[in-house]
Structure formats: C-alpha cells, structure tokens
C-alpha cells in the first residue's frame, strides 16, 4: 500500500438529476414514483473510486452515461447530493473533505482548490471569446499571480498552436480551440488534469493527434489525469487505466455506476 494519499477518494457518492424522487439509499433500488406521472430519474452512483497521483484514468461510456457529471463533480464544479466520503488531496497538500465544503456552501474555497490544483479541458473548449489564445492560456496563472515566463510558448509549440497565440477563439478552428484549452489547463502547473470529451468535436485525424499530445504532456509533467471520452480507442492503453462502468435501469430510474 502506497504511503502517498490518493488524489481523489470517493465512497458512495450520488448525484441525481431529473424526476422528483431522491434515492433513499445509493445501493438499494429506488422506489417507484408515488403518483401516476412517469418521472424519469438519472442517478450517478460511485460506490468506490480512488485516483492516485500520476495515474491517467479514462471514463468510457455512451453519451448521457454521466461521464461529464462525474467529471464536473471531480472538478469541484458540481455539488454531489451526498457521499459517504469525498476527499481531494493534490500533491504536497493536506486532504480536503470536499463534501464538507459543499455542505457549507464554501464556494470560494472550492474555487481556490479548482483554480490552483485542477486544469479542466471542456468539451467546447470553454475559452473566453474576448481574449486572445495567449491571454486565455495565461488567465489561470494570472489569477494565481504567477508569471508564465516562456511556458506558454513552450506548451504552445508542443501543441502546434504558436501561430495562433495572438488570435481570438473565434478565429480558430475547433481543433485549435481544443489545443488552446489543453494549454490553458496545463500552463499554471495544476496537480490534476480533467478533460471532458476533448476530441469529441474534431475529426478523427485531429482527435488522434490531440489525444496523443494530451497524454504526452500529462505523462511528461507527471500529472494525474481523468479523461472522459466515449470514443477512446481501446488500443491506446499504455499507461492508461479504465474506470469500470455499468448502467442499471429500474422502472423510471436509470442508475449509472462508475468504480475502480
């Protein structure tokens, strides 16, 4: 057993969407709605989930399976309904009880953790349209008061977007925007990279290049990464772990389970 604490530690984490009934118990099947209306409920259920420093984990699953929901929860951007344990411990820091922060609605502390230790690549890039690519990339670092000192150019060169640095997102292709989003997630040196379908919006050729670059950069920096991708090629498994996933349907309840 490693002495280094896990970056993420989740037990019995539940996030429910839609419908009117909450799960009475995460492990137990839900009861049917009490009235005649057909309420469909989706419940993300994570019985057990542990991510250790330096691990690269892929969440595979069909669209609507709850990958993005889980990633948002791990990004401290979405409030889980409940969890027996939900802990975040970036490198060189003490573990933080995230459930406690959410219950106290301590959005600023959650924001500080997110801004300092997490780099998030959104499916749509999530770039600010009024800033150039360079300014978008520099923004998380500026928020932390850090000067990038050439790091933007180095990462941009690796991602082949040097020529696009002074362009606005509206002047970039979808693939270029995704590369800028990856650069933005990396440049301020977070402990964890989260990527939500980073290649879903680009053509297969570009998708393969972006996947390869993302993995290279993450591995080279020794970062922890969790990547949600419905189309992650099964042959690309070197240094990558896959999270177990199963969908259960019970009357009007769809339960999506992720665990490792």
């Amino acid at each position, binding site marked *: 057993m490693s002495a280094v604490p896990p970056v993420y530690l989740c037990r019995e984490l539940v996030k429910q969407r839609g419908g009117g009934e909450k799960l009475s118990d995460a492990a137990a099947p839900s009861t049917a709605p009490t009235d005649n209306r057909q309420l469909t409920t989706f419940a993300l259920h994570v019985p057990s989930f542990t991510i250790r420093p330096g691990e690269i984990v892929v969440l595979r699953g069909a669209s609507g399976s709850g990958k993005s929901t889980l990633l948002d929860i791990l990004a401290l*951007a979405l409030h889980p309904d409940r969890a027996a344990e939900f802990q975040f411990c970036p490198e060189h820091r003490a573990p933080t009880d995230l459930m406690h922060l959410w219950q106290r609605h301590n959005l*600023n502390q959650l*924001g500080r953790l997110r801004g*300092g230790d997490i780099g998030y690549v959104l499916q*749509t890039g999530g770039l*600010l349209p009024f*800033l150039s690519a360079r300014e978008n990339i520099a923004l998380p670092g500026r*928020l932390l*008061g850090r000067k990038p000192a050439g790091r933007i150019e180095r990462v941009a060169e690796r991602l082949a977007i040097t020529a696009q640095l002074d362009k606005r997102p509206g002047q970039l292709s979808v693939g270029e925007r995704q590369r800028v989003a990856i650069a933005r997630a990396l440049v301020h040196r977070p402990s964890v990279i989260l990527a939500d379908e980073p290649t879903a919006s680009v053509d297969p050729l570009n998708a393969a290049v972006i996947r390869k670059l993302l993995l290279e950069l993450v591995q080279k920096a020794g970062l922890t990464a969790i990547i949600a991708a419905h189309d992650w090629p099964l042959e690309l498994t070197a240094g990558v772990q896959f999270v177990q996933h199963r969908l259960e349907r019970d009357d009007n309840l769809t339960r999506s389970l992720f665990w490792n």
Partner: protein
Amino acid sequence: MHATREIFRLAARDFLYERRLSLCYVLALTAVLAPLLILFGLKFGLVDTLARRLVESPVNREVIAVGSHRYDAAWFERIAARSDVAFVIPSTRRIAASLSQLQNPATGAVVRAVQMVPTGAGEPLLHLPRSPSSAAAKVTEDAFAKIPEGVTELMLSASAAQRLGVSSGERVLARIDRTAAGRDEGVVWEVTVTGVLRPEVLTEEAALVPLELLVATEDYRDGVAVPALGWSGVPPSTAARQFARFRLYAVSINDVARLEADLTAEGIDVRSQLTEIAAMQALDRNLTRVFWLIAGIGTLGFLASLAANLLANVERKRRELSILRLIGFPTASLMLFPITQAALIALFGALAAVLVYLPVTLTLNDWFTLSLQPGESICRLLPIHLALALGTTLLGAMTAAAWAGWRAARIAPAEGVRDV
C-alpha cells in the same frame, strides 16, 4: 487581489470586444436619461425662475395707497420698523409728483409730464430677482448708476432716456410749472442723470427722484420757497410735514396679505396683487406637481430600463461567468464583472446624455433669451444636479448588476457551462 484586478481587466476587455452591444446598452440608457435631464433642467430653470420672479418681484410685493391721506413721520417710522416691510418712503400728492418737462440741452429733445417716483436707499426696483449665479446682473443699463441724491439728480426710465437721447452722467434741463396769482410761472434747473433703468423695471416715462426733490417741486407748486434751488415763494412752514401718499413694499409676497389687512384696519384704503399672487402661486404649485409627476414616471421608466438592460446583460454573460468561476475566480470578484460593465455603461450613458442635454439647453435658453433677465435660464442644471444624476445612474446600475451578478455567481459553475 489578483482576482479583483483581473476581473476589472476582463470586464473592460469584454466591454470593448462587444463594442456594438455595449454601444446599444449605452444608447438605450442615453435615450431615457437625456430627456429626463432636460425635464429636470426645465424644472430648475423655467419653474424655479417663474417662482422666484413671483416671490421676489417688487411689483407683487407693492402695497399701493388708494387716494390721499396724511401720514406723518411717526407713521412712517412705525411702518418702517415692521419686520414684514422691506421699503417705505413718503410720496407727495399725485398731481404734484411730476416734472412738466425734461429737455436734452444738446439736442433739444423733450419729454413732457414725467412722473416722479420717490426713491432712496434700499430701492426695491433696483433689487429685482436675480439668480445666485448672476451676481453681476444689474437693473440699470450702465455700471456707473447710483441712487440719486439732493435736488439735482435723478434716475431715468429707459423710455424717457431713449426719447431724450441721454445716458448716465449726462445733464438735462428739468422744468416745472405753476399758476400763482393768476399767472403761469415755471422754473428750469439742471439735473444730472445718475442712471438709466432697464426697460422692464419701469415701463412708463418716469424718473426715480430723491424725496428732497419731490418735496421741493411740491413746495414750488404750492407757492412755497425752495432756497436750495433759489425758487421764491412764501417761507416754508415750521410745522412737521405730512405726506399724502407712500411707496410701500413687503419683504415677500407672503407678507402682503397681513400688511394690507393691517393698513385697512387703520382706515387706509390700499390695493395689492393679492388675487394675482394667489392665482400665480396656484399655477406654480400645479406646474411643479406636473413636472414632478412626469419626472417621477420618467425616473421609474429609466430605472426599469436600466435594470432590464443590465439583467439581460448578466444573463447573456452567464457562460463567461461560469467559465471564470471554473477557472477559480471567487464569488465576490465574479460579481465585480457585471458591476464593472454596468458602471461603464452608466458612465458612458450619463456622459452621452449630458452631451445631448447641453446643446438642447443652450438652444432652449437661446429661444427664450428675450423673456429672460440676466442670469436666468429656461433650462438649467447646476453641476451638483449633473453629479447627482451621474451618481444615481451609477448607483442604480451597479445595484441592479450586483443583484444579477450575485444570482449568476451563486450557481454551480458546471450548470452555467452546460447551459450553453
């Protein structure tokens, strides 16, 4: 600290990036604020000018004796001591209170039957209503005018001076006539014009003269000698002099009614502008109400428009705010994003409204220039009013934006990002 500085920069960059939309918001604000400024300008210009004229105009404050009585020095002292009396001076019999003729010796121009109005220190006609910003406003045509003294000085009305072709400092020949022992007689003496009144101060051909001169002309007509001018006649009586009339002005129009009542109680028939004052006061009150009603509705519309625009802007910025939150910006600094943009919209909107207001107010004042006295305006806002308008706009805009920003900042960042 980094977050606050960054959010100001980002809000300004976004404001510039979406310059067309920003311009629309600024113009929308200008469209409601500019008419409101003009409306308030009219309130502080037109309505206040009318009200001040009404309150301060000596015409409205004058209490005029009807017919002749006999008023002694004690009566004048008692009246002058009243706190509601601004000015009182004796006057002679109406028939004696005129000059038979004034003549310009240089040109020969003549004005006949010039009414003499007694004057002295505190002359109300020389203190016409003026605005606080026009200390230099004067009621005479020249800067050297002074209240006449003695028996050889007078101040002319504009019409009399114009017909004579004289101005302040020039000399004219005055003449009065009498019939003594069946013979027509007259005396001519030289008087100095100490000033010329503005046309609206005294419309008829008249002269403000010292009481001493008025008494001298009355004495001459009564056959009494006037040694000061070398006019012969019977020796002056040693008895205390009594006057037939007076000029009396109340301190304000609110004092006129009491003064009139007290004089009537003494058996003195007087008349004043009481009815006209009441009518004008009612008109002023109603006009003020109309202005405040329109201004109130306009202000409500302005605030509603401002809030609607800014709320719409924040809703539109929901995705950007969610991204900023995702990157790690704290709640308080996120609220500064819409607040900064609201402040920019309010600032530029208010400046644009002032730029619309200024030429309009200049034009309005130009159109009405002939109806205005120096220092008066039809449309006028003081710098404090403009500062208040800017402050109110900024405060309203920032409050609306803060409320909307607080709502936007409270949502989980994932929800805002997924919404789009």
